[in-house]
């Protein structure tokens, strides 16, 4: 060491001095590349989406007319398009409700009773299906629900073949086989998004203090009363956080109803087919804005109910 203070030995040291004197400069330099990327690529694209949705298509030439108009949004309201929106929102609501019911025992058990090795089993047991290939999971259900597949085989094996046929004969939700009915679409959605409900639910259940359960018991409440009056209200933020995922993911998916389901469109399929073969990018963009608008309303309500403390 030559001097009392460190002398600048090269450009690296001089820059270090500069960063020390102006700490905001380093923060700004670090932020610049990721913000530039997200700002240009992502926000830029979202703006492009909005811009496209205000364009329209010329009925005769099929070309996009780059003039500002609300005509494309008005097209969303014609019955055949509006049905698509209603169908998708109804499916998203059904999937969300069912996943709350199915997720609760898993999350509750993992939060309250699992320990040591079982804790790890539950953690990986939820994490692996969450992360494993989306397409592989959807494909697995095509195998399961096929007319000649395992569900039919099992139903006939236990003598419930008639029951399965009766379910498939139901109007609207039934169909030729499970893999071409709304029931099938619903089951696959439920399966694929279930881990997204379990994880936030488990996180909020783990934060419920044990002392509160003891207090509830001391005050004479039975298990059901404690569940209803103490545990469920405290778990609500986690449920809402999970429902944001299941609702939003169902609104925007187009692969699942295409692989397993009837031929009637969901929002995602409308977007995909309109931008592709139909070449109607403005209407596709307007359709894509619908889930954003619905989610904004949903998020506003969720924020009021305190769901974001659990994320």
């Amino acid at each position, binding site marked *: 060491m030559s001097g009392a203070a460190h002398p600048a030995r090269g450009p690296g040291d001089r820059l270090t001095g500069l960063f020390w004197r102006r700490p905001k400069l380093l923060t700004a330099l670090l932020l610049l590349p990721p913000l530039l990327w997200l700002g240009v690529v992502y926000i830029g*694209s979202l703006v492009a989406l909005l811009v496209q949705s205000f364009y329209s298509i010329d009925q005769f030439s099929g070309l996009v007319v780059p003039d500002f108009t609300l005509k494309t949004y008005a097209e969303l309201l014609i019955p055949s398009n509006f049905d698509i929106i209603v169908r998708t929102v109804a499916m998203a609501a059904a999937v969300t409700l069912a996943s709350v019911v199915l997720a609760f025992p898993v999350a509750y058990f993992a939060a309250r009773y699992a320990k040591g090795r079982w804790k790890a089993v539950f953690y990986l047991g939820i994490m692996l299906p969450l992360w494993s290939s989306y397409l592989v999971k959807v494909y697995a259900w095509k195998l399961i629900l096929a007319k000649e597949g395992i569900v039919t085989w099992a139903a006939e094996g236990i003598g419930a073949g008639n029951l399965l046929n009766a379910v498939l004969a139901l109007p609207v939700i039934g169909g030729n086989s499970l893999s071409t009915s709304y029931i099938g679409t619903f089951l696959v959605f439920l399966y694929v998004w279930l881990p997204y409900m379990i994880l936030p639910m488990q996180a909020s259940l783990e934060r419920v203090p044990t002392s509160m359960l003891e207090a509830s018991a001391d005050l004479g409440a039975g298990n059901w009363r404690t569940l209803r009056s103490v545990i469920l209200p405290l778990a609500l933020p986690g449920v809402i956080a999970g429902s944001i995922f299941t609702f939003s993911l169902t609104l925007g998916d187009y692969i699942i109803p295409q692989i397993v389901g009837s031929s009637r469109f969901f929002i995602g399929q409308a977007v995909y087919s309109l931008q592709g073969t139909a070449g109607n990018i403005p209407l596709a963009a307007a359709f894509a804005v619908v889930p954003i608008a619905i989610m904004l309303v949903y998020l506003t309500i969720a924020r009021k109910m305190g769901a974001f403390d659990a994320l």
Partner: protein
Amino acid sequence: MHSDARPPLALTLAAIGGLLFLHMPIVLIFLYAFTTEDRSYQFPPPGLTTEWFAVAWNRADIWPPLYLSLRVAALSSGLALVLGTLCAAAMARARFFGRDTISLLVVLPIALPGIITGMSLRSAFAIGDIPFSTFTIVLGHATFCIVIVYNNAVARFRRLGASMLEASADLGANSFQTFRHVILPNLGSALLAGGMLAFALSFDEVIVTTFTAGQQSTLPIWMLNELVRPRQRPVTNVVAIVVFVATFLPILAAYYLTRGAEETAGGGK
């Protein structure tokens, strides 16, 4: 909340049933790769064979999508590693105006449905007259991979704290030496975990890709086409197993790399 009491039997059964529901379908994918029946999804399989692995190996149309997927996943996770780490470093360093907006901006590409990211990029390409290429696929993938790396890195930065960096500066290291000898070794396993998760996510992504690929075919797009118009069904199962393993191994590795830390990798897909 934790209790040492024995759980009610009904709850145990429901919880185990839930876990089985999450895992059984994947087992079937493996079973069907060995079936002798290639025209339907008949259950139980009439016979078992391993010939489909050889058939899949010799199918020329599988290899180019596989290479493209590997290239895209490598490029996207590489880009996401750099951008995500920079962002995490800045967020860990300082509190500043607009900090919450930035954390929202990072999460948004994965919080909104893929179809919105995909359709947005498609709109931008249409307006900017940008032709589809490997680059356009990477553009989309890197965008939603940033958050994965960011989540892992920011948790580790928080644990690292300021005292180590101050000690390094007191001992005469400049910023770059501190980065090389103190920050990087401490960050290493978190970055590796984040990078692998990003790789898995990109390798498997299909929704955004269908909007940004044009005529190109990644492995998931190849699979999607086979699902819509099946040819040799068991071959699709063999490819599904490959995709499953290629995403499963990085996830398992990421879990073991970050286990025991305050934030285990994968919690925030």
